[in-house]
């Protein structure tokens, strides 16, 4: 008699990758008697990643849950999520274990991963190295799929993603698109964030994103996957730091960012909005010769995506603190001129929508938004609104990623179990 556990969103190899957002799962007896039922205890039994369980979709999951499983094999539904602040390091270090409540005998288990975006400064070396290896393969000496990402963010495409309300949703989609491309290479990888308001000396090293030399060239350890980095027919990464390596970049702090305002307009795009500081200030914390300093060349430097993961994290945290994840909440997003295509909640976003010409750029590199087994969201041609609730705290499908310091918390208007 065994217990079979099935988790929604498992990939072709049956592997489940979880975040803090609860996902549906079932447990059922296999090879049991025809009648009766067995009390089975689900618990988190991994070496590192933690799991929590509940019978409804909630933010109060516990590390164990007792289910009464019919012996005839009828499945019983439950919800499972990563335990906040107990992320995995690799696949299989989080384990869901099912045991007989009466005897304590283990009846089944399922290895999973609590796959979470983490602070690059404290990222364990094995995770760092997997990220770098995947990034190197994606770049493939300037001839890989990274070229599409490079072509998305240029001087010619600026209006799609800067200076308007769509700034944060577009970049959320952009980082997620890259992350999914990396996960197609190595499913255990996430994009680490560069917390630019804190010292991050471990990031700008020869082992990680490169140590800038006196000629403003990022230098890597021999054999490093980014030693072969190339974009736009440019070999290597031109980057000089205009801030103390052992200090923060020249940006406002996270708490100051949270105080920018509790409406999206003030927080994101206003005179003192975060698109300028900390976002723009982080970009220009590098020397003027640095490619990351300018919109048109910033993506030549892969630190771009770690910078923007942090921008996205700050938005996610602001959304969590202020409960601003609902598209119908007027304070959760900003209005803009009717003809400002691509920046309204109901607009599809370029380039994933494939629309070219007119107000849109002449080409749409990269194709539709990549699908993943983990979640159906945001779909192949995402709208701006699809990016607002990354953990789906208001219901629906989550985007399949989470940050190590932004929890899943149901808004006051949503009760556990619904919608």
């Amino acid at each position, binding site marked *: 008699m065994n217990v079979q556990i099935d988790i929604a969103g498992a990939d072709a190899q049956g592997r489940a990758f979880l975040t803090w957002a609860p996902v549906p799962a079932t447990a059922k007896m296999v090879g049991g008697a025809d009648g009766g039922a067995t009390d089975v205890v689900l618990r988190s039994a991994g070496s590192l990643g933690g799991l929590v369980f509940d019978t409804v979709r909630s933010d109060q999951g516990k590390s164990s849950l007792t289910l009464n499983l019919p012996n005839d094999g009828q499945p019983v539904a439950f919800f499972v999520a990563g335990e906040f602040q107990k992320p995995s390091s690799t696949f299989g270090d989080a384990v869901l274990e099912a045991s007989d409540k009466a005897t304590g005998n283990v009846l089944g288990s399922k290895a999973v991963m609590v796959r979470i975006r983490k602070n690059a400064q404290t990222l364990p070396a094995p995770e760092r190295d997997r990220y770098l290896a995947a990034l190197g393969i994606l770049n493939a000496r300037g001839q890989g799929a990274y070229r599409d990402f490079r072509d998305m963010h240029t001087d010619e495409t600026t209006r799609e993603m800067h200076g308007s309300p769509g700034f944060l949703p577009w970049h959320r989609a952009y980082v997620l698109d890259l992350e999914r491309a990396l996960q197609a290479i190595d499913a255990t990888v996430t994009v680490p964030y560069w917390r630019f308001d804190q010292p991050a000396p471990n990031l700008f090293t020869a082992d990680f994103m490169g140590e800038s030399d006196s000629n403003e060239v990022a230098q890597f350890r021999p*054999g490093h996957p980014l030693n072969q980095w190339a974009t736009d027919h440019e070999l290597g990464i031109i980057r000089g730091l205009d801030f103390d390596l052992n200090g923060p970049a020249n940006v406002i702090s996270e708490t100051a960012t949270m105080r920018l305002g509790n409406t999206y307009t003030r927080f994101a795009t206003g*005179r003192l909005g975060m698109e300028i500081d900390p976002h723009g200030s982080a970009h220009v914390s590098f020397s003027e010769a640095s490619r990351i300093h300018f919109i048109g060349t910033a993506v030549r430097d892969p630190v771009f995506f770690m910078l923007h993961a942090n921008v996205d994290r700050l938005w996610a945290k602001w959304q969590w603190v202020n409960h601003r994840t609902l598209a119908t909440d007027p304070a959760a997003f900003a209005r803009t001129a009717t003809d400002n295509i691509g920046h309204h909640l109901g607009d599809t976003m370029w380039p994933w929508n494939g629309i070219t010409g007119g107000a849109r750029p002449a080409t749409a590199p990269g194709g539709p938004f990549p699908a993943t087994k983990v979640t159906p969201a945001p779909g192949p041609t995402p709208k701006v609104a699809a990016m607002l609730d990354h953990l789906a705290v208001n219901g629906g499908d989550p985007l399949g990623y989470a940050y190590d310091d932004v929890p899943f918390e149901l808004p006051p208007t949503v009760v556990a179990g619904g919608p």
Partner: protein
Amino acid sequence: MNVDDYRKAYEAELAADAATVGATEAADSAIGHDPSDRIPALLATLGDANQSLLARIAALKAISAIRFLGVVFAPHRVAFLNILRQIAQPGTDPQLYERALAILAAEKDPDTQQRLRSGLKDPQAALVSPATALRLLSFDDHAGLADLALDVFHKAVDLATKEAALRVLATDAKSQDLFAKLLQDKSQPRSLRALSVTGLNYLNPQKFAEIAQNIVKDHGDYEDVRASALGALANTPLHHVIRDNAKFLDEIKTLGAQSPLENLRAAAGRFLTRS
């Protein structure tokens, strides 16, 4: 941590921080919400030679951050570039001068590009070092720098300039023989050989794979060059073909397991784990 406790702790952190900055924030929030409000004053500070260097650099950084708003900054772009052109003249403090020059180069300003090119041909006319000039000209991926870079490479005596020139040549199809020669010449500086790894792998992966395998197997060659070559083999489109070479694969397995050289061991690990 329970999510309710986590929220309370974070809200307390925000409240404590807000209490320390209340007065400043109140003053800030009294100003309008249009980002373009700030731009004229910042441009004036940047262009005013009577302002301190620090104030002018701070204004430049603030403008540069606002430029990320794209269309919001567009009406001010011409005025900004004109100020930069004034700054990028002899006599300006080098700290400000080089920053202005870099922004103009990033903007593909024709006059700036021409001045940088002239400086590479005639050191007397140079605005900046040759290595810096090549880096700035490389903002423009259609700059067509190969012939100039090759000339700089052969004439240069310092390593930094040669390295900068090779970075440009790494995408020039005509340069593959140069890279092959440098890569196999143990008397060349190792940094040039390491750059040749990337350059040849970019221009001719087949030829690179042949040479790189020999370098990796050569226990008499330098560790960093061997590690660079092996790291690149892990990232070449021919990776799967190379893996089919059983003898070479055994060699890499041995390096991964037994080499006392850390970089080489790590590169071997990456080669072997690449699926």
